[in-house]
């Protein structure tokens, strides 16, 4: 049983195409941010309606939707931004194709080593972003999602690249479908949450330096192209809170697999330890959001720490610390 070289090559080319699309999309998103008018946020004037019967937090969302529907966005930067979404979707399709062909080439799940795993995490992140885009006007996030995805895929395709090959016996279990899929999905979503958190931190410090600009209702005078810090904070929280139970499930599934493979469900192996640390830090983040005096900047910093722990869990542990998870050929 060896890898099919044609399919494997097709997979590599598809990934290359996906990265290319993501780069183009990133430039498009960046152009929209650089040259477009401010993002639809805050109570833009609602034509013909009175806003006095509506709650403030409802208005912004509602207004945003209406502005999005009724031509609040005009001009070439907006067109470029929309085109960037289309290119992202194209890249996403190619990316899916890359994973599928890789899986067909080796006749197994396409997440058996760090290269494949990184690619799948990026796919999860892009999927999460596109999904969020269908629910909320978050195109401003595009560039900040594409950037880490492109960097990540770049590293995966060069440093971590591994030729298509069958699985080592330790990974040959149906748990690879459960544990690893959960881990990849949650990591991809955490990655999105991390991007939003960084944006929040930037926006929050900008707002503190410019107290004269009201948080909402800045209108045309504002040069701000991002939503208010409070909106970003809410989005970041929702994204991270969505990923947290999936990560919890990944850790539990990992423990069940560890029990079947190594005879104990938990042994403080470096990978297990760092997944625990990641879990604890994100749990701290969720609690901090609900604690007076920790909300906002501090909670966001904990979120950043959580993503850092996650990255250590994946990369530092595999590359520099030896343990039971050090099989996944670099």
């Amino acid at each position, binding site marked *: 049983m060896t890898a099919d070289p044609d399919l494997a090559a097709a997979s590599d080319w598809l990934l290359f195409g996906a990265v290319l699309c993501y780069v183009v999309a990133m430039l498009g998103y960046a152009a929209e941010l650089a040259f477009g008018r401010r993002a639809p946020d805050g109570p833009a004037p609602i034509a013909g309606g009175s806003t006095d019967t509506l709650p403030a937090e409802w208005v912004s969302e509602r207004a945003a939707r209406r502005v999005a529907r009724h031509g609040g966005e005009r001009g070439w930067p907006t067109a470029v931004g929309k085109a960037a979404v289309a290119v992202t979707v194209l890249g996403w399709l190619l990316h899916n194709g890359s994973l599928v062909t890789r899986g067909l080439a080796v006749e197994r799940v396409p997440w058996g080593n760090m290269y494949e795993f990184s690619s799948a995490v990026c796919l999860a992140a892009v999927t999460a972003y596109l999904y969020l885009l269908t629910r909320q006007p978050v195109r401003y996030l595009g560039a900040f999602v594409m950037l880490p995805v492109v960097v990540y895929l770049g590293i995966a395709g060069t440093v971590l690249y591994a030729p298509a090959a069958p699985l080592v016996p330790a990974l040959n279990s149906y748990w690879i479908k459960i544990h690893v899929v959960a881990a990849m999905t949650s990591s991809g979503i955490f990655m999105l949450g991390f991007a939003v958190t960084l944006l929040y931190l930037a926006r929050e410090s900008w707002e503190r330096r410019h107290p004269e600009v009201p948080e909402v209702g800045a209108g045309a005078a504002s040069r701000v192209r991002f939503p208010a810090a409070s909106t970003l904070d809410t989005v970041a929280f929702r994204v991270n809170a969505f990923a947290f139970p999936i990560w919890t499930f990944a850790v539990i599934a990992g423990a069940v697999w560890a029990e079947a493979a190594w005879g104990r*469900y938990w042994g403080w192996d470096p990978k297990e330890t760092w997944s625990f640390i990641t879990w*604890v830090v994100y749990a701290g983040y969720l609690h901090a959001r609900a604690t007076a005096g920790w909300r906002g900047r501090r909670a966001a910093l904990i979120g950043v720490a959580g993503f850092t722990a996650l990255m250590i869990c994946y990369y530092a542990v595999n590359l520099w610390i030896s343990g039971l998870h050090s099989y996944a050929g670099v």
Partner: protein
Amino acid sequence: MTSPRLSFRASLRQAWRGLTSMRTALVLLFLVAVAAVPGSILPQRPLNPFAVDRYLADHPTAGRLYDRLGFFDTFAAPWFVGLYALLCVSLVGCLIPRIRLHLRALRAQPPAPPHSFARLPCRVSAVTALSPDEVAAAAQRRLRTRRWRTRSRGGGSTASVAAEKGYARETGNLVFHVSLLGVIAGVAVGALFGYEGRAIVVEGTGFTNTAIAYDELKPGRARGAADLPPFTLRLDEFEAVYATDGQARDFRADVRYSPGLTEPDRRATLRVNHPLSVAGSRVYLLAHGYAPHIVVRDKDGAVLYDSVTPFLPQDGSFLSTGVVKVPDVRPGLPQLGIRAAFLPTVDVARDGRLRSTSPTPTAPALTYEAFAGDLGLDSGRPQNVYELDTRGLTSTGGGLLLPGETSRPLAGGATMTFVGFREWVNLQVARDPGQRVVLLAAVLALAGVVTSLRVRRRRVWVRATAAPGGTVVEIGGRSRRDADAFAVEFGRLAADLTKLLPGPVAVPADATEEMHP
């Protein structure tokens, strides 16, 4: 004026309040995360004691400091245990009042509608021909079928229904936290009553589940090493399948076993990810390797050493190294130590060095270097059976042997014969009675956290007031979080409720739009 006793009690209460506050819990959580870091970076005694010894030898100063701080057994170190014990206490202290509050809330009635609906974030109003009582009754029925907890109030000219939903949020939250305590309890049960051990078993030999048979045994604290469930096991054959590039494809160990101490008679195949259950314990295949059969004879031909010695694989080609220690060659003569490497497929590299090109034993060979002198067995230094301490030894040369070959005389006229080889497996035997508790608690915790993050607690009020020209119906609601998602839900609910109202219904245009998003 307060008595010192009272102020002592007051300060105790204050300390308790401080410990059980969310802020303290957050700091403790963060400290636990940080405290776990050394456990992942430094070698850990329970996982790999030899790596700790090596680290201590390489970094004497820092190593000793780390050792004193318990960094080589982080997760059993007093400060780590203390931290999570504090976290547990803080958790319990936080949970008890919250459980009490929640139980009260579960029995409580939804509160009366606010005096004015104007401050509610979501609201619509309509005018209908129904009487206030009819409106309230219809709204209550509909809300009930949608599983809202309702209470109607008033009657006559003004009737109202209060409805509340989303108690599951706090229930889930509490289940999550109580389940975490369950996980810890399950872990404790496992540590007290379970056991875990590792043993190397060579093909053709047996294993009896007794403390002495293990290379490494961690007995449960409450049961001790003498109390292992009896069973026997015999390794008939081990087989590893490799691809042409040397990548392993499959491992299988054919064993015979028997619960109890009788001759093993049941057959089973152990594979990675497929353990064997016997006598309430599980047997796992962890690793494998080669064990050369080595015989050392003195110059008169008397056997000094005859053993199938497990060697440790060093790389993917299964070049495996091991050590033979012969302490008593003959009274008065130096002791003999042999450092050897087993090469499954021997080959000469371009630079002239020997190497193994494949893990499959197609051309096995043994290279060795012999040493004479003092093995250091009486020095009191910890001995590793896989390493030779050459401090008191001098090399007497080495060579290469094929199966069946005997070396030239080593020190004192002794010779070494490489008879052949067998394979060994490293078995892990474990029993953890707390495991099921941990799994159940973990699954409950997951269900709890999903519920508490998904469900919103929200309230809706319907008030019908008789007025000239019909009954004015006001519908309003609020949710403590996720206001926009609630707005959508409220829009649907309000649309559903206003549909109950026959007759001339007037709904503000602004609200209608939101009702059909």
